[in-house]
């Protein structure tokens, strides 16, 4: 497991997460941009934060691919479900 990978700087990631959260708050309530842009940017930031947690805190970055696949398999399924459910209202 520990093929002598360098341990990430956890405090730095904590700072990242805190700053991104603050950015989200500012974006949601202060920034005068259109709703759709807000939506896209907020989702982008949320996924970024989630990825940071997954990659470093759950150390997926340092795992073998077959374990990563285990973590990733449900994501496309969830996406398919949500898109199909939403398509009800597009016609």
């Amino acid at each position: 497991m520990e093929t002598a990978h360098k341990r990430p700087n956890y405090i730095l990631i904590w700072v990242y997460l805190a700053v991104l959260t603050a950015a989200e708050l500012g974006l949601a309530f202060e920034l005068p941009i259109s709703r759709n842009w807000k939506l896209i940017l907020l989702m982008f930031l949320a996924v970024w934060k989630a990825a940071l947690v997954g990659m470093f805190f759950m150390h997926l970055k340092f795992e073998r691919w077959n374990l990563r696949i285990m973590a990733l398999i449900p994501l496309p399924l969830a996406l398919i479900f949500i898109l199909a459910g939403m398509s009800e209202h597009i016609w």
Partner: protein
Amino acid sequence: MTHAAATVDQMRPPYPAERGLDVYNTKLGMWVFLASEVMFFAALIGTYVILRFGATGEWAKPGIVLNIKITAFNTFLLICSSVSMVKAYAAIQDGDPKKMRFWLLMTILGGATFVGIQVFEYMHLVEHGFTPAGVREGSELAGLVANGTLPAATMGLYGSTFFTMTGFHGFHVTCGVISMAYLYVTKALPGKYSQQDYRGIETVGLYWHFVDLVWIILFTIVYLI
């Protein structure tokens, strides 16, 4: 890790076995469990997205019903507890059980405070008239609905989805706090974790970070959008 060979006995699958994923059972089991948790939250979050997308009217604007400030603090708290969890993991990897116990205790406290604040938030919301069934008649929020600040048509769905999603997240946090407290008392205090075997810490950590990760998504889509 420098003493890789010494960790083998505890951290690897039992010796005469076909090669699996090269991780011990509990860790693999936790990842498998988390995959199913993803699907559980996908059902809840998916429901929210589909209902909100298909709703026949405007959704309430963020920040009117929910208290963003206190939740932002709570979010920060959960992120901190995730960091303290990973610090505990790093400490025991380095063979420092004392530091590990400190950070684990911090994590437990952070998680417990999060749940406490959430309970407080719920009580506050219900008091102001926001319930899983929608806005309570005659309440403070009902006034906002009446004067058009809040859309009447979607408040029922808002209440249903909000309490279900955050409620189940809170339930997961509670479970995490209980299991960490259990491990703290039965394993960490008696000194059962060592540089050679810290499976419990790593496994419960994975669960804890997952709960944090879900909250990151929930906070954005429920409170900010």
